[in-house]
């Protein structure tokens, strides 16, 4: 199931769970200094 997540800064990503987790973790770490777990990334995502 594809899901979508967006950041308050305007960034967003849509994809399957594994790529969505990786994208959220990379964005969070690189741009915002955030450590996001896989569970947190999935919990934030919304099915499209």
């Amino acid at each position, binding site marked *: 199931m594809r899901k979508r997540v*967006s950041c*308050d800064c305007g960034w967003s990503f849509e994809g399957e769970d594994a790529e969505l987790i990786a994208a959220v973790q990379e964005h969070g770490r690189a741009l915002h*200094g955030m450590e996001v777990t896989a569970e947190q990334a999935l*919990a934030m995502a919304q099915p499209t």
Partner: protein
Amino acid sequence: MTAPQLGSFTVEGPVQAEIMVLALVGDDVMLTGPCGAAPWYVEVAQGADPMVVVAAITRANVGEPAVVHSTSWRQARGGVVLTFVAVMDQAAIGALDRVAVRRAELVRGAATAAPGEIAAGPVIEHGLRHLAWLAKDDAVIAGALPAGWLAVLDDYVPEPFRHL
């Protein structure tokens, strides 16, 4: 991280850095950043030095800053927000989105209380006033500012670091 709003996430935490990435384009101070022309929020982990965090993340995502300096703090976004200005050379900001910084009235609190919600404009205005103060008080900062900045900062009332 607290329970997120479905579909979105935001920077949070007890200490957050708010980075105003600024560059001079012509005679105009521009607000820019890797997340668009807006204040850029970064979590500061427990025990981390906010200045080091801000300099490193700016370096990694935008380029080598000419000046990084904390200019104010306030309680907002569920924690303490430390505002930093990161002055970049125009060449460093490349094609990043940018918007011209307009002059703004500062928001003043009471003698023993902070003002209510503060928009970005007054925060940037204070940041530039603080930079104007540094430019007169700190020869290292004055020397590090890219060409044109000292003349632009002459139009700002110099102010020290303060609580907004």
